[in-house]
């Protein structure tokens, strides 16, 4: 009997800690009706580290709650179907060249364009300069946007972000772009294509394959 109790307790702990607990999902546009094309604003930031997890040296995204405006350490967010999603991503991390420079091209945004500090661009060549930190890619809808990085000169100056979430006082780039959310509800995974998982084979382990850090889901709902 005692043995069964121990097994049950162990199962509960495993299920509770590892199978059900995870990053929260931040809901955007909860008052917006689906399939209306209404604009929904999503604000995120990517940091070179994080102070809120058991992996403080892992690069990580944060999402700003639309209700509390607090930064939430998660990569899961919900948007209404058939809406115009306007993304603002603050980039605080330094550059790493792309393994496949194709992903320097902006794909799948409205107008196939994105903006870096307000300046429109259609591609960032990560081989020609230190200018790309990460990408925001949703393969299921063909979306890919390279995230610009602060220049090396800017990073060399004092004030580099060293504790998360970073603030706009730290050197950063502001990336903006818009895309249409799918009309079909579901979970669409997104990822970064920069090998920014330092300490792992080819830089593609650790935070690159852990939800809550550099990959997650866009939950599209009706």
């Amino acid at each position, binding site marked *: 009997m005692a043995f069964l109790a121990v097994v049950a307790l162990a199962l509960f702990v495993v299920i509770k800690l590892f199978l059900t607990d995870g990053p929260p999902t931040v809901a955007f546009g909860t008052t917006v009706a689906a399939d209306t094309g209404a604009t929904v604003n999503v604000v995120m930031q990517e940091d070179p580290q994080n102070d809120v997890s058991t992996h403080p040296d892992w690069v990580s995204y944060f999402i700003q709650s639309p209700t509390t405006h607090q930064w939430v350490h998660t990569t899961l967010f919900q948007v209404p179907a058939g809406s115009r999603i306007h993304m603002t991503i603050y980039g605080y991390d*330094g*550059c*790493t*060249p792309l*393994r*496949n*420079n*194709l992903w*320097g*091209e902006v*794909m799948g945004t409205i107008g196939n364009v994105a903006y870096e500090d307000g300046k429109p661009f259609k*591609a960032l*060549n*990560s*081989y*020609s*300069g*230190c200018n790309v930190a990460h990408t925001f890619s949703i*393969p*299921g809808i*063909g979306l890919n946007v390279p995230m610009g990085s602060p220049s*090396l000169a800017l990073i060399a100056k004092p004030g580099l972000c060293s504790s998360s979430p970073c603030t706009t006082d730290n050197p950063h780039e502001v990336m903006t772009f818009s895309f249409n959310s799918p009309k079909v509800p579901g979970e669409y*995974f997104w*990822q970064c*294509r920069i*090998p920014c998982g*330092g*300490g*792992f*084979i*080819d*830089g*593609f*382990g*650790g935070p*690159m*394959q*852990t*939800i809550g850090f550099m*990959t997650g889901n866009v939950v599209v709902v009706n």
Partner: protein
Amino acid sequence: MAASTAPEPTVGDSAGTGPNHGLRIFLLWLPLAVAADLLLWFVYGPHMPPGDMSTSAIGQQFDIKVMSVMAAPVMAFVLVYGVYALIVWRHREGDDEDGPPIHGHTRIQTTWIAMTSVIVLCLAAFGTYELAGTGMAGAGGGEGPSPIWKPNGSNYLQVQVIAQQWRFTFRYPQFGGFETTALVLPVNRPVQFNVTSIDVIHSFWAYQLGVKADANPGVNNVAYTTARQLGMFKVECAELCGLWHGAMYDFGRVVSASAFQAWAAATETQLAAYTKMLPPYATTYDPTTVAQLSKAMIAAGITGANGLYYPPNDPVQP
């Protein structure tokens, strides 16, 4: 004592006057086997996987059809023999004696060995001819960087398949080397897939085309096929490659020769500016040997002069 005086029974006729069980089983089995083979070949055969969208797929479908028509008579024999045994040789009340001992039969053994030898050798010769004979289009599997078989002529389309976590991209070296996420192929034209990876091990599987080739970093794995039908086909990764392996799939298109030419020319023009950002076409893309990438890494100060993403002691396993 009775056993020592009893006459020696013969195979197939325990008493010398009973029914010929072998002949009975054969006559039951033969029509069943023939009917099963006809149904498999002519009715179900055209619908067998992976279909007939390409020469490779047709070849694989043919292989499965041949295996099926060979296996069906065997299964029919097992079925007939089992049912016959249950009905005819079942245990009866009061019959507790052992069956008659069976001794060797030289003629049956010789015939058996000779027939199976002839069948196996004929199949081996047939398979070799079909694989390497003129007019064939490869098996659809990766042949490595130095394929022993190539399609006739030089008018085949080269398509490089670049696998990466978690997406396939495709490069067309005969059209300026543009790279795209779309896989478009012309009908009735041999295609040479050059399959490689830029990170971990993947596998390029175009099921309906009958093509499945491992995508390994630093390796150019060559596979051939010729699409015979217009339409869509699925492309997916068949090698567990990380968190989103299950989502690493997409769809390709087979279009007419003229439509392909128009698409390729338009895409080459449309992507010309982006193509300049890519390294020169190569059969593999080892990050340590892509010159522009190494320079960018060194310029960014995030690696040593060896061009690796991280210093030699890093990457490490988690």
